[in-house]
């Protein structure tokens, strides 16, 4: 399945169903990651319920140091 993540085109296994599974695939699941799918912001508690599909535009962001 082809996804656009943070502006880059990426191939991921078709078996990935949810944001949670995508984060596990990217080895990002032990971090605090916030997701936006096709411009819908997904609350972190809904990541496992949020389906992903071919051509989705996904933004993955996190908290970084700032003032």
């Amino acid at each position, binding site marked *: 399945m082809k996804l656009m993540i*943070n502006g880059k085109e990426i191939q991921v296994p078709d078996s990935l169903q949810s944001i949670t599974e995508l984060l596990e695939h990217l080895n990002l699941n032990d971090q605090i990651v916030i997701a936006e799918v096709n411009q819908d912001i997904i609350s972190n508690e809904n990541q496992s319920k949020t389906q992903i599909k071919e051509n989705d535009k996904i933004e993955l962001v*996190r908290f970084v140091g700032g003032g």
Partner: protein
Amino acid sequence: MLNIGPYSFSSRLLLGTGKYPDFETQKKAVDASESEILTFAVRRMNIFEATQPNFLEMLDLKKYTLLPNTAGAKTAEEAVRIAKLAKASGLCDMVKVEVIGCDKTLLPDPIETLKATEELLKEGFIVLPYTSDDVVLARRLEELGAHAIMPAASPIGSGQGIINPLYLKFIIEQTAVPVIVDAGIGSPSDAMIAMELGADGVLLNTAVAGAKDPVKMARAMKMAIEAGLLGYEAGRIVRKETATASSPLEGLSVK
């Protein structure tokens, strides 16, 4: 106590988390500052790098209230999106609205700041807008329902200190919500002056992160803010142009 919306804090020092030399120093500086509110920015992840050490994940999040900023936003719409992304983490509902209107001075865009504040208040956020030292804007933000006003002392990261104490005082006197002096603080004396002017708190980052010894500077800032608050509450003496002796003139034994 510093009361912001439904929250109460015993510390009046809000600390930024950017630009520290390393996480170990940063952790010690945060401890030394005794700050309870820490600011963060929201940024895209590098999805190809699985191990990305992150300061947030080193913290005991029960001990701190997170204050994400909307830095990077140039419009109200962008600021609202960043705030919503931050809130989606489930870790915070406060936000520092920061909409930069000038790349050279990093001064905020007052109109976009006002719009973003209005929208985020509607969405139920606890909103702390970063502003210039404009008393009229501060009042307009308060009228909208902003939970605190955060005027800059001088340009972000400049360390120039409080360049317009008079205008800051106007804001402090004319708004009922907490006024937190944000940006431009360089030294403990700057933070103390802000508190002596009657500010409710101080937000700073570079002054600690960029100090030769950030841990020591964090402690100095904490102490300066406490001293400034005490001084403000105690009420300073009136300035006079002439001297008045502190020792009695009566009973002098020498001629």
